């Protein structure tokens, strides 16, 4: 059965590993992927452990439906305590890695300890080896993957690797697979680096037995049709995820100059159509590619058209790279974005975090909080593309005082820089915010403030809010599988009803991350895409596991509470600007200055925001401090955690 894939526990300190099955009751309770990872982390990482110490537990997983007949189930999830935030570390990437891991018989890898010298894991058809990686240390993410294939003599091997940023313990280093698939948030590459773990290589040729194969294939045709006929996915398949950046910038929902403005004017060269032109010119008309089992193909292939890296092949860039290297530092050349995107993929560092932290430093430089003494003479003003590129190199290699300081992450850097620099750091729970501006969208502001891994648009963002869908449509979506009769508003600038939407989307995305599918195949940007009601049949036909929509909802809610318990255990308190569910003061105090007429002058109302948080906690069954009540824990079967069932 597809469900038979196992958990491997690997101790890098001792070199020993143990393989265990996943009991059915645990599957039903946490499904798989991120949900089960949350359980494993809470049960295996000791309270207060050093994120860079051997006791931190790094978990790599595929979702429940990974490598089955179901469409777009290619997501790989990685979890550990974050070196960036000190709270939950969690990241999710596409590509082909998790499917290969499933064919090698594994669903979850739980990695503890620290190797004495650089190593990599070689996992193939149920076997686990720890191999020498001394020769791989210092190589970029792509070089590492090629070198492993060369060494093992198999071009089909898929590897999750770190680049130099992970080796240098940049606290927001990525795990990379393929050219550009990035496990990019919360520094999971840094955790790998701290364990001297350069890569996890997998190759599998084992059968995945599908419960009802013919019906599963037939059913998937309908599923694919539902996904590929959506307007949003037709657009993604042509322009990539970057089309969202273009749309958001149109009305003034983008951050630029580190939150000073909410629209990048005259950004024509950064619009997705411009990248489409570059990709077409350098790669030909069929330049879009996709992840394992996906029909959307949202990823552009291109060659950098000009500059010192001209001619180099790369993929993407996604929405975030255009924010990180375009609008945030106010650099309006496509070449800058494409070059920076290439560099972060090779160094293995989070594009969002590094773009934000450099833009923050640029504002500090313009304010005189840091000077040319700290920058080694670099003119770190906004719009200086050369300075941006140089700072990427310096951070990833920890070169110079500022490069080294910024490599530690925003909050430690603000402590070292001092002089009110923290006030300008646009972060939640120590993680920089997405390059969108949520002052005109209170629901999205609530989402980023309360997300479990710090400021995050992929944990609960009710992005369909932006479409002004009729309330009847919203009610149809948000009243299933749990009835909801409270307020809902078609107005994205309203505050009412948003806490429920954020709560619902939070459960939806947890389910998606646990099943292992891509968020572009659910109610993220398209109201007509599958959600709770649509998944049970795909699960049943592929795995034989009978779950109702409510069962999936309950498992998602349970898993979200596991993440909350982890964060509370590690110090989260509601109003803490460093570890709480709070937003930077600029959301409340500085009005939007650009964009569509309705957006001008808008900011978040502090009192209404506080009421939203109260209501959001209430939907969860949490008290006013955001702590799950005993009744909630009992209802979800979490009152005995940690139970160490696995």
């Amino acid at each position, binding site marked *: 059965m597809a469900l038979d894939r196992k958990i491997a526990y690997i101790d890098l300190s001792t070199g020993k590993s143990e393989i265990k099955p996943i009991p059915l009751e645990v599957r039903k309770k946490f499904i798989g992927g991120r949900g089960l990872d949350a359980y494993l982390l809470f049960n295996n990482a000791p309270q207060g452990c050093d994120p860079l110490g051997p006791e931190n537990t790094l978990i790599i997983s595929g979702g429940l439906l990974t490598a089955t007949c179901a469409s777009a189930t290619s997501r790989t999830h990685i979890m550990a305590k974050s070196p960036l935030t000190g709270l939950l570390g969690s990241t999710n990437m596409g590509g082909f890695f998790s499917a290969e891991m499933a064919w090698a018989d594994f669903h979850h890898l739980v990695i503890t300890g620290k190797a004495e010298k650089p190593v990599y894991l070689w996992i193939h058809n149920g076997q686990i080896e720890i191999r020498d990686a001394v020769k791989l240390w210092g190589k970029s993410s792509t070089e590492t993957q090629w070198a492993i294939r060369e060494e093992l003599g198999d071009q089909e091997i898929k590897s999750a690797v770190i680049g130099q940023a992970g080796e240098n313990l940049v606290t927001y280093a990525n795990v990379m697979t393929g050219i550009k698939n990035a496990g990019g948030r919360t520094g999971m590459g840094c955790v790998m680096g701290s364990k001297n773990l350069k890569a996890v290589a997998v190759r599998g040729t084992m059968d995945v037995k599908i419960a009802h194969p013919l019906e599963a294939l037939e059913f998937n045709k309908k599923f694919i049709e539902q996904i590929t006929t959506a307007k949003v996915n037709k657009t993604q398949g042509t322009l990539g995820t970057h089309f969202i950046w273009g749309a958001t910038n149109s009305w003034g929902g983008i951050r630029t100059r580190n939150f000073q403005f909410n629209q990048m004017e005259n950004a024509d060269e950064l619009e997705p159509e411009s990248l489409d032109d570059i990709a077409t010119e350098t790669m030909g008309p069929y330049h879009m590619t996709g992840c394992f089992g996906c029909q959307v193909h949202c990823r552009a292939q291109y060659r950098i058209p000009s500059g010192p890296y001209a001619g180099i092949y790369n993929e993407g860039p996604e929405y975030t790279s255009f924010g990180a290297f375009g609008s945030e530092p106010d650099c309006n050349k496509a070449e800058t974005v494409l070059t920076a995107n290439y560099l972060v993929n090779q160094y293995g560092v989070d594009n969002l975090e590094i773009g934000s932290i450099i833009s923050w430093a640029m504002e500090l430089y313009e304010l005189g909080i840091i000077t040319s003494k700290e920058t080694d003479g670099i003119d770190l003003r906004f719009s200086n593309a050369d300075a941006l590129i140089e700072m990427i190199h310096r951070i990833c290699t920890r070169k110079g005082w500022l490069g080294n300081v910024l490599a530690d992450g925003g909050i430690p850097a603000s402590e070292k820089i001092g002089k009110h620099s923290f006030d300008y750091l646009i972060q939640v729970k120590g993680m920089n915010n997405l390059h969108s501006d949520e002052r005109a969208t209170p629901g999205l502001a609530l989402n980023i403030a309360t997300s479990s891994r710090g400021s995050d648009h992929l944990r609960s963002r009710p992005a369909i809010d932006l479409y002004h869908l009729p309330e009847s449509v919203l009610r149809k979506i948000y009243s299933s599988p749990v009835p909801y009769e409270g307020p809902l508003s078609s107005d994205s600038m309203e505050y009412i009803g948003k806490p429920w939407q954020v709560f619902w989307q939070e459960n939806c995305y947890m389910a998606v991350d646990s099943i292992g599918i891509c968020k572009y195949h659910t109610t993220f940007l398209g109201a007509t895409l599958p959600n709770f*009601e649509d998944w049970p049949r795909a699960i*049943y036909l592929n795995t034989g596991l009978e779950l109702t929509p409510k069962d999936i909802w309950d498992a998602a809610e349970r898993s979200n509470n596991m993440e909350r318990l982890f964060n509370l255990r590690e110090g989260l308190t509601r109003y803490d600007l460093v570890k709480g569910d709070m937003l930077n003061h600029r959301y409340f105090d500085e009005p939007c200055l650009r964009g569509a007429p309705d957006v001008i002058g808008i900011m978040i109302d502090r009192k209404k925001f506080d009421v939203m948080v109260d209501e959001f906690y209430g939907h969860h069954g949490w008290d006013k401090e955001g702590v799950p009540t005993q009744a909630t824990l009992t209802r979800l079967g979490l009152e005995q955690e940690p139970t160490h069932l696995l």
Partner: protein
Amino acid sequence: MAIENEKVSASESLRKTRTYGKVRCMNPSCMGRLEPAPGSMQITCPVCGMSYRLFWVTPELPRIRGPVWEVNRKLAEEVMAKKKLEASKDGSL
């Protein structure tokens, strides 16, 4: 696409509401549906005055490429001036 073959889920039923050939004005409380002429490169919202440059994903599927910057800036400046005037009147400025 629910667990029962015959039952239609919310997302399936909503597919009937999909529209092609139109875009929405991106001014948040306007959001009027605009139907550009096939192949046209610009459109202006008759309600709020926002003007947009267009891209055609397919011959049937238009997309807003971005605002017409000059129009966008002019409208923004007008709103800002009005808000400043109101604020100076009520003493909040």
